């Protein structure tokens, strides 16, 4: 009992935090400041992160293997926590956060993401995923006075609901044909199931699940929701979706595919169906995401497409992990996560500062270098990191993925990756151009709240640090889970 409490401590803490915020919201008067709740949220997330670190290298398995936690999983949890923490800090200066629910939902979404990462059983996977999604639906619609926000939330609900149905439908086939919902047992039974003359149903199930996962990580052709939702959602929540939700989705993908198709018994399926399907997803995501981003005028929309492109890159890393060809595979994915997290969070933080309540189309950046040279510089760095230019973390991320892809002879994909990267230069640099070349009559300096400033500074330092001295992180990852 006590052991279980300890093993689940990060999740417990989040739960306590949720309860505290709920109580706080009940006790606080309607028009008093909600800052204290934000503080509670921040502290809770931090504490949860500390406990994740405290758990160290032990391997935990609870509830007859439906909850597992090992260093590898913990490293991703840490990422989710850091992402959420940044969003929480960013929210201190956000009007929306004047509602207690905001932090509450943020924490519950994080809780969902954390259990999602740990879940090794279909029911738990599904419930965690939904906890994450449902909280996110509401968060997206948080801007109640803004039509776009509600509309985005609505679209998210419909697309999200349909995609969960796909996912579940696929899961039901896997359950039915292997007779278990536990992933470990399932992987044992899967080889038999494939020889049971029912492999068509399993393939069907696999593709259905792929639809569900593809939706979650916004991979083409299941990406339609992302631009609308990124655009309509409050910027802080867009950050959350782009970072935490996405990383959790990838972790889910990795867990599911890795534990089912990573086994020896069904290598033919892995190579014959799973990998080609992922390749298609990846290539489509890279091309469509980056090409359509070229046409976008609205910044958040553009970043949405760019994040679709990034999803494509990350899928390559997943493929290399599944192929198991290179030991760098996992660290490359992780590195990419980190780089993406830092750069995206920073970008959105600056967008929030610059655009304030306006709809952020490209023009808000005009002449930023004059108004706030530091902000312009930071945004440039983040964009360069997203574009994968050396001296930023993004480059090392791309490099590691490329090495992995080459190690597994995925030459064409690597080529497409680089080609689309070059395409992506075009729209990233266009923003830089907007900042440095276009003049704007607006002369007053941007007011950067301390919280946004903190987040921007942190992500900037991270982007440079991991870009110039990647060893810190690479070794860190290596020593942690190897």
């Amino acid at each position, binding site marked *: *009992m006590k052991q279980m409490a300890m093993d689940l401590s990060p999740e417990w803490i989040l*739960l306590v935090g949720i*309860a505290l915020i*709920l*109580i706080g*919201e*009940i006790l606080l008067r309607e028009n008093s400041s909600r800052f204290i709740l934000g503080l509670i949220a921040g502290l809770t997330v931090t504490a949860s992160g500390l406990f994740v670190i405290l758990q160290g290298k032990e391997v935990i398995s609870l509830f007859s293997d439906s909850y597992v936690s090992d260093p590898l999983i913990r490293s991703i949890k840490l990422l989710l926590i850091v992402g959420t923490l940044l969003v929480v800090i960013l929210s201190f200066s956000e009007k929306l956060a004047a509602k207690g629910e905001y932090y509450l939902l943020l924490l519950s979404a994080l809780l969902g993401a954390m259990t999602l990462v740990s879940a090794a059983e279909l029911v738990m996977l599904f419930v965690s995923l939904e906890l994450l999604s449902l909280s996110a639906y509401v968060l997206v619609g948080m801007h109640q006075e803004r039509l776009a926000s509600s509309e985005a939330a609505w679209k998210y609900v419909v697309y999200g609901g349909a995609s969960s149905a796909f996912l579940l439908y696929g899961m039901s086939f896997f359950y039915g044909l292997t007779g278990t919902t536990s992933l470990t047992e399932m992987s044992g039974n899967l080889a038999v199931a494939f020889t049971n003359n029912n492999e068509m149903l399993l393939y069907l199930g696999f593709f259905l699940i792929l639809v569900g996962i593809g939706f979650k990580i916004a991979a083409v052709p299941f990406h339609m929701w992302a631009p609308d939702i990124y655009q309509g959602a409050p910027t802080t929540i867009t950050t959350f979706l782009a970072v935490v939700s996405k990383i959790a989705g990838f972790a889910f993908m990795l867990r599911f595919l890795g534990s089912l198709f990573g086994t020896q018994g069904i290598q033919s399926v892995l190579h014959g169906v799973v990998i080609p399907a992922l390749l298609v997803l990846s290539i489509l995501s890279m091309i469509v995401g980056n090409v359509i981003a070229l046409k976008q005028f609205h910044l958040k929309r553009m970043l949405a497409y760019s994040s679709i492109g990034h999803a494509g890159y990350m899928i390559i890393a997943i493929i290399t992990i599944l192929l198991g060809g290179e030991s760098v595979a996992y660290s490359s994915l992780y590195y990419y996560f980190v780089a993406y997290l830092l750069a995206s969070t920073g970008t959105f933080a600056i967008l929030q500062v610059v655009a304030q309540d306006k709809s952020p189309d490209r023009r808000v950046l005009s002449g930023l270098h004059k108004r706030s040279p530091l902000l312009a510089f930071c945004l440039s760095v983040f964009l360069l990191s997203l574009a994968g230019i050396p001296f930023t973390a993004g480059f090392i991320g791309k490099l590691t993925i490329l090495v992995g892809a080459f190690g597994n002879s995925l030459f064409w994909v690597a080529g497409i990756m680089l080609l689309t990267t070059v395409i992506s230069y075009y729209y990233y640099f266009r923003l830089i151009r907007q900042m440095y070349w276009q003049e704007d009559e607006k002369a007053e300096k941007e007011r950067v709240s301390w919280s946004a400033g903190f987040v921007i500074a942190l992500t900037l330092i991270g982007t440079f640090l991991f870009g110039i001295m990647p060893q810190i992180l690479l070794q860190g990852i290596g020593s942690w889970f190897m």
Partner: protein
Amino acid sequence: MPISKSFLIIGIFFLVAVLLPIAALTLGRFLRASKPSEEKATTYESGVNPIGGSWVQFHVRYYLYALLFVIFDVEAIYLFPWAASYDVLRSEIGLGILLEMGLFLGFLILGLIYAWKKKVLEWK
């Protein structure tokens, strides 16, 4: 009694329950008067001609109650199995089983108080 037979009986109950109104209404058709007129087929509105459509927009409170209902009704799904197997689980797992449901209920109660505070429960 095998389970299929139990449901057969329920099916018979259902059939009987459906047949009764059908039979009664069919019977009534032969007995009752039938003199339809324009006025009779008008929608009733306190004796005046109906104004506007009647499928009006409902007050939002109905939806709020519906949402609350869904939440607590679904909660019941978990409460019943838990309650039914409480004794068994109590001896197997110990007080943890109480704790778990206490947590579950606690959060629901918190949610209820929250809704209360947010004036969802008011009928305005």
